[in-house]
């Protein structure tokens, strides 16, 4: 059953990355590199994703029509794909965020007593 566990872990990671991308695009359309930078910067460089894994995630979101893609020019005048949050993606972000909050809350409740025990 180890494959199953592995799969779940990947799914969890994927879901998280998706959520971060959606959250980033909420501020406005931008290109892939800028998304990676924003995630790093906003999490005080705690979340060090391998930048490449961003791309399959972007593809997945495009496929689900949560984000759309358009041609644009980056700040240093290079041609680049710009990703934009769609209405559907916006709704999904709300759903995902509340899911995440619940999950985080649940995990926190499980972990807190242990911490208290450890402290005392």
């Amino acid at each position, binding site marked *: 059953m180890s494959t199953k566990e592995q799969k779940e872990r990947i799914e969890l990671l994927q879901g998280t990355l998706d959520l971060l991308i959606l959250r980033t695009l909420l501020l406005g359309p931008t290109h892939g*590199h800028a998304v990676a930078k924003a995630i790093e910067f906003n999490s005080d460089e705690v979340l060090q994703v391998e930048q490449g894994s961003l791309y399959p995630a972007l593809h997945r979101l495009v496929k689900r029509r949560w984000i759309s893609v358009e041609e644009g020019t980056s700040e240093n005048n*290079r*041609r680049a794909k710009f990703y934009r949050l769609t209405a559907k993606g916006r709704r999904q972000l709300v759903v995902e965020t509340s899911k995440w909050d619940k999950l985080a809350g649940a995990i926190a409740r499980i972990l807190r007593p242990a911490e208290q025990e450890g402290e005392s």
Partner: protein
Amino acid sequence: MRRRKRMMEDLDEDIREHIAMEAQDNIERGMSPEEAHYAAVRKFGNVTRVKEEAREVWSVAWPEQLLQDIRFGSRTLRKSPGFTIVAILTLALGIGANTAIFSVVNAVLLRPLPYANPGQLALLPEASPKQGITDAGMSYPSLLELRDYSHVFSGIAGLASHSLTLTGRGEPSEARTIVVTQDFFSVFDTKTQLGRSLLPGDGEQGAAPVVVLSDGMWRSQFGADPKIIGSPITLDMRPYTVVGVMPAEFRTPFFDQADQLWIPLVQDPLFSGWMNHPPQTHWMAVFARLRPGVSFTKAKAEMDTLSARLAEEFPAEKGWQIQEVQPLQQAIVGDVKSPLLILSCAVGLVLLIACANIANLLLTRATSRSREIAVRIALGAPKRRITRQLLTESAILGIFGGVAGMFLAYLGVSALISLLPPGLPRIHAIRVDWSVLGFALVLSLAASFVFGLAPVLSAAKSDPQTNLREGARAGEATSSQRARSFLAAVEVALAMVLLVGAGLLLRSFARLTSVSPGFEPKGIVKAMVSLPQFQYSTQQQWTAFATELMTRLQTAPGMQDSACAAPLPIKDGQINLPFEIVGNPPLPAGAANTADYVTASPRYFSVMGIPLLRGRLFNASDSPSSPPVALISGALARRYFANQDPVGRHLVFGFFPPNGTASREIVGVVGDVHDVSLGKKPEPMMYVLFAQAPLYGCEVVVRSKLSASAVAAAIRTETHNIDKNLPVTDVATLPGALSASVAEPRFRTMILGLFSAIALALAAVGIFGVISYSVSRRTHEIGIRMALGAGRHDVVKLVVGECLRLTVIGVAVGILGALAFSRLLVSLLFDVEPTNPLTFVVASLLLTTVALVACYIPVRRAIRVDPVVALRYE
């Protein structure tokens, strides 16, 4: 999928850009360019893996799963070959029959007519409601009037048809000649494959005679000679120059022969003389093409105005009007539409029964597979996935059954074409083409979905926990046994509908063929001899020819008696003429007495066995120079001379061009004859003496004990002894002609009979399956009953009772369905009520008997149950 292409195409560039940007950032942070690049690449990660993952995002999971399902499905089907073969054959039968019938429906009803913009083409029949005449033709002056004063049509053309004698190329033969006004080809808007079609100039008086050939005529008579254009051919001993050859698919509406030719009206030996006939001669079929954007309703409104105007211009036309502007397709297929649709319904029912049968088989299998499915659900297979797997299995059955069905249809269609009544329009267009195969494929997939639902629904209802429990068989099957009984009852009901339909048609056909035609057909051979009119132009010549031929035939060895007449009975296209009774007050304008007109030689009545009721027959004292005489039929005497003696009275009538109207003395009354068809009541008829009203040719009837071919040969020999260029056509025995006249009802009856036989067999198989499964499931119960003292009799009652219950329910529902279905049949029934009780009773009994026979084997198995073995079993 466009998004996928776009995203994947640019991915390489995107990655390069990304790394370049990152490197740029690194340089700004103070790294050397080389260092910056490597840092960026490191941070990006494995480029190949990223690309693969991105591709995976877009790759679709279902083809792979489908492949799995197909592989698994075919494996399970292979494992139970008996079931698979029965299911595929059943389906093949259903699909094959449906596809064959569809190929006919497609060719006759659905495929557009082979002319440009066929939706604009219309037929313009005339009618005189007061006289009760409909679907009549038009005169040439009326056609010209319409052409000159109507605005709704872009073209109007008229045509008439007969046979001309083609000589100079081997045996003289009859060529189906379509005599057309000059606009014919522009109305139908079809290009020739060779040369040109008719031009307006060809229709002028004094133009050189020209002819356009059909593709079939060009191939069969002229060996597809590419240099035919410009060469002369001989029709009725007169040369015509070939100017064009039409493409193969082009046929004149209503004339489906492959071999035909077209000549301008002015060049025809007969009809050119009719161009000046007054408007009350309704002899041309008139076709028109609507201008783009003009509706049929609008065209009809204009026709009403023009009809009023025609009536004013030609007072004799009072009461006549353009009956309707009839869409051509409707005019051509109108009569066969409802029989074909009924056949389609019937064959659809056969397919439904086949589906019910397969569903039943699948349900039985689903029960034995319920544990397998329960295991798979328990192991985590989502129900959706199981549903898909079950449907895929059905679809595999569907496709195999469909392909086998297409093969059956391919074989069946050629058999079907040979069975089809020759009068069916567009018969030549029937074939198994892509649209027919597409129909078969869609139908088989739809069918497989219908019967595939059964196991899916039963799987959805089943509870894996009960199914996994050991020995939990009895409880599980109750609902699915009920479903099986339901399906079997449905089969019985559908079979009942078809049986009643077939029974009604059979009774109707028996009634029709037992009608006495009014003459004695046995031992009579008929043939037609027509005289080319350029050679034989006078009435004297016509009479002389007929007399000579009769004399020769009377003395020929083996010929007992012979006569000639025109037209012979049992023929669509009788000559219906108005007549006046001398001494009766004149009829109001626009009203007319009419009767069917026949010109006959004196011996006609004795050859045909038509009895004389009063007075005398024609005899030797009647001649061209003696006072004109006539015989009337019993129907005419009853209708117009009720309580009077018609013999000695005079009628004024005559057939148009040759002999005009004359006052003729009624010398006798003869028996009624079904002159149009067996299914139509004998109409009033009047006979004139051939010598006093000859025609350019006649139909010969010869009574003889010799074989039909010997008689035909004698007729040919004697005709050619008079003139070797005369064609002898339409040779047939009268019984054969009579049988051919009911070809259409016979075809319907046969096909519906075949369908109901298939339905009966399938229903029997269905009942057999359900009852024998039920017996095997109840072995334990039967064992207990026997152990407790039940006798064989009780066991038989138990099983037969179950069988009868579902049969009776099926029959009862079927009777309701049959009442609805037989209402559709009304127009096809002759002398039989659609609710004919005897038919319903016989069908119910037949079905019940078959059901009882079908459960014979299960009953035997049930009474052989050994209680000891049955009880030990669990």
